[in-house]
């Protein structure tokens, strides 16, 4: 989770405390605003995972969800679904490789 969010909200090593405050606030406020209780968030993740695995082979048992503030009046709901690198890759092969670049 933190890894994913770190990439999403552009955390860097040289981040100042003000930048950290801004990043953390922007993250927490979209969650405050959507006001989705943790159990419903978990249920939503499970359903999204079920739907996606109907069509493609998913690596791992869970997905990460983040809400990202965006321009104007909308926020983006972003889901990170761990995918097998190639369809023939065995499921277990990617499990400890969670540092993959999202953009690659």
């Amino acid at each position, binding site marked *: 989770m933190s890894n994913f969010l770190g990439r999403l909200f552009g955390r860097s090593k040289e981040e*100042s405390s*003000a930048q950290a*405050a*801004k990043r953390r606030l922007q993250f927490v406020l979209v969650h*405050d605003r959507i006001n989705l209780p943790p159990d419903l968030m978990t249920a939503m993740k499970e359903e999204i995972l079920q739907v996606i695995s109907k069509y493609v082979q998913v690596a791992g048992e869970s997905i990460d969800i983040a809400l990202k503030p965006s321009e104007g009046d909308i926020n983006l709901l972003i889901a990170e679904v761990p995918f097998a690198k190639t369809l023939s890759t065995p499921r277990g092969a990617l499990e400890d490789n969670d540092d993959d670049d999202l953009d690659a």
Partner: protein
Amino acid sequence: MGGRVVTVTSGKGGVGKTTTTANLGLALARLDKRVVVIDADIGLRNLDIVMGLENRIVYDLVDVVEGRAKVKQAMIKHKQFPDLYLIPAAQTRDKSAVSPADMVQLCNDLRKEFDFILIDSPAGIERGFRNAMAPADDILIVTNPEVSAVRDADRVIGLIEAENKGPARLILNRVKMDLVRKGDMLSADDVTDILAVKLIGIVPDDEAVVSASNSGTPVTLQDNSRSGQAFRNIARGCAARTYLSCSLMRKAGC
């Protein structure tokens, strides 16, 4: 039409609502406006002492609402500005003594004789907050550049919008420029990026605010004070009913 009701509120307590109300009240009076400030923080009477009017209280807001006193009897005239009055909060009674409808009624009466009715609201989302919100034409949210205060401000902004009372406007109080420059305090731009409201005032953290409260003479009466100047800028926007955004004010060289 008549006077305008301006409610000063916040999510978190202690961010500077009372300081802001007192200073805006005085700054507006200095602009020759007829002003009444109402302390709606029932049980936590504060505005009187910050404005130096604490020794002259006979009746309070609850006395007026419950009919024991006429509005005129509860209004305390400022020593220096004869067109500035305070209606103090009750110190002892519980908050349910006043209802939102009471506040609307009271403010409608006051609109006839005043240009501005400023309400010092309690923080947060309890009953007293709704009382202060009910009659408001303009809502000014005070926050500090700190994570907890900004988060709580967002919550209150959401509530105000949900009740179609907006748009709320933001005053960022207690900014320490040296910390902002070092990257150790959220800047005004950071805060406007985070909160979806117009920023209408940036007030520096200033020791003079505390000494001014000590003596009951709000800092805006000191012409050379930076925080006092910030409050005067906000008051000008308020008086013009335009509430210039801070970026515009900077362009205009304020």
